[in-house]
């Protein structure tokens, strides 16, 4: 090449992404993808290209969703406000954000006129896999963590003796480290207190929310007959930062299974439920 000859970029072989695997491996110079070159596709090529293209399509799809979620989540926690018209979408994102922080759920069962009952560590069953920690006591704090490499692990600890059940969903505490979640997003500490004159089986199914969020708990409704309710449900904020969900069950309460939604007041997103099983009186 002489010194005065201008360096030129060679013509582009393609100007669009390769979105068709058989077009992608077609030999150079065989014409456009629409032309029949007469050569049947080799099985190995088709297989390889199919899988590559499949992963590209599905990963692009997932990535788009994740990016949308990340943008929304930053909005949720950055500005601290969510426009009313995007609350539906934001709800999903708040849940994603909740995955990044540890859960802190406390449980207390009170029977016999408000005395704190110690729930015996009589049994412990896991719906799937082991959960860190293993005993259930009258006042339990748990940093829920799922078993490693498990999608959506959950654990159920059933305690008999005081007829109490504690259900803690395990958020990905490890994910917080992996994704660099801010320490500022401390989880809200929640305590469930049930006051009853007879043994009550209680469960709190709860996803973590940031510590500065407030909860709303709806009256508990009988699963078989929605007109029968337990209305004495209160949410109290304690000076130590703990939120207490207190449910008073009257002696005359009809037997049955009751449940009520726990809603994050900031986002209006349901983040859990309280359920009680009220036994029949003798």
């Amino acid at each position, binding site marked *: 090449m002489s010194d005065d000859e201008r360096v030129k970029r060679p013509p582009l072989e393609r100007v669009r992404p390769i*979105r*068709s*695997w*058989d*077009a992608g491996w077609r030999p150079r110079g065989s014409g456009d*993808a*629409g032309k*029949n070159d007469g050569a*049947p*596709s080799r*099985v190995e090529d*088709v*297989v*390889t290209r*199919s*899988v590559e*293209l*499949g*992963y*590209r*399509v*599905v*990963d692009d*799809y*997932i990535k788009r969703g*994740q990016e949308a979620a990340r943008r929304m989540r930053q909005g949720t926690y950055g500005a601290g406000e969510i426009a009313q018209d995007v609350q539906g979408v934001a709800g*999903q994102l708040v*849940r994603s954000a909740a*995955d990044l922080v540890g859960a802190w759920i406390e449980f207390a069962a009170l029977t016999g006129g408000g005395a704190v009952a110690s729930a015996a560590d009589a049994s412990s069953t*896991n*719906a*799937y*896999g082991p959960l860190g920690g293993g005993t259930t006591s009258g006042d339990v704090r748990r940093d829920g963590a*799922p*078993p490693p*490499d*498990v*999608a*959506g*692990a*959950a654990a159920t600890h059933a305690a008999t003796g005081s007829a109490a059940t504690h*259900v803690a*969903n*395990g*958020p*990905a505490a490890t*994910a917080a480290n992996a994704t660099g979640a801010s320490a500022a997003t401390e989880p809200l500490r929640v305590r469930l207190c049930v006051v009853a004159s007879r043994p009550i089986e209680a469960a709190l*199914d709860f996803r973590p929310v940031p510590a500065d969020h407030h909860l709303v708990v709806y009256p508990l409704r009988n*699963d*078989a007959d929605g007109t029968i309710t337990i209305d004495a449900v209160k949410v109290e904020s304690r000076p130590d930062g703990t939120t207490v969900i207190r449910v008073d069950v009257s002696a005359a309460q009809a037997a049955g*299974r009751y*449940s*009520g*939604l*726990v809603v994050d007041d900031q986002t209006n997103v*349901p*983040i*859990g*439920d309280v*359920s009680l099983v009220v036994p029949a009186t003798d």
Partner: protein
Amino acid sequence: MDADLAVVPEMLRRYGDVTRVALARYLAPREPQRHLYAPVADYPRRGGRMLRPTLCIATARVFGATLEQAAHAAVGLELLHNAFLVHDDVEDESEARRGRPTLHALHGTAVAVNAGDALILLGLRALIDSRATIGPRLALRLLEEAERMGRESVEGQAIELGWRRDVALHLEDADYLEMVLKKTCWYTTIFPSRAGALIGARNEDGLDRFIRFGFFLGAAFQIQDDVLNLVGDEARYGKELDGDIREGKRTLMLLHLLRESSDDERGRLARLLALPRAAREARDIHWVRERMDARGSIEYARQVAHALAGAAREECARLYVGLPDSPDRRFIEALPVWVLERR
């Protein structure tokens, strides 16, 4: 049948029966019977494979749920599936479904569309009823999942309808896969898996991983279904053979044929696809079918289906590693091969 695959029909039968019993409650005769509830109950009673509810229940059980906890979701899913079939048959102008005339062919379009609407509402009712077994929060999450599934499905259907309406010819395989991801995979494999995991684990962490598995499994399923439309046994397949060609459906085989055809052939194909469905004659359909054989389009689609099924197996192994062995897990693991073995 391979020992690993034998678990599939067994589980389809077992959980299919459970679903049918629970389904009967939502399909009980009532007024207006003749013009609503009889047509509503028609498709569900024609006896589908129950793949979707079985996948939902099996996934839920793998993650620790009871049968009772998963049953409502399975019923809701089956009702929504049948609603989509009714509406799809109208939109596609299909003539046969599960070996019998389509609902709109029997009752007219208006009654069929209304029955499809009712099936959607019944499906939502079943999901709401799951509150009694899984609690209100998870029931709400299920409804959210169902809403997303429905939205993805109608978006996928819109993409495909748009291709036909606009006589789209320059589609690529990635376009097809994106459409299938939305239209088929979400309600056939992704939603059943995600719903089952949600119910079993009571936790939504990691649900996105089911998108990959569901996509590969569902795409392999759809491509094989499209192949069966050309080469299957009509009595077993339950739909009119070559119906997809008659409808101008953009299948992988058709896209391949469009790419591989000579200019003359492509021109004839384009003119044919521009015609309304009723104007496509039997000899045209036969010609397209013959060209697909000549150009290797069906074999090509089979190879793609096998490749995607292989990726589904890989994703499945990642998802369920460490979980205890059970018929439910074996059923899920066998599905990628089973979808290819269907006749």
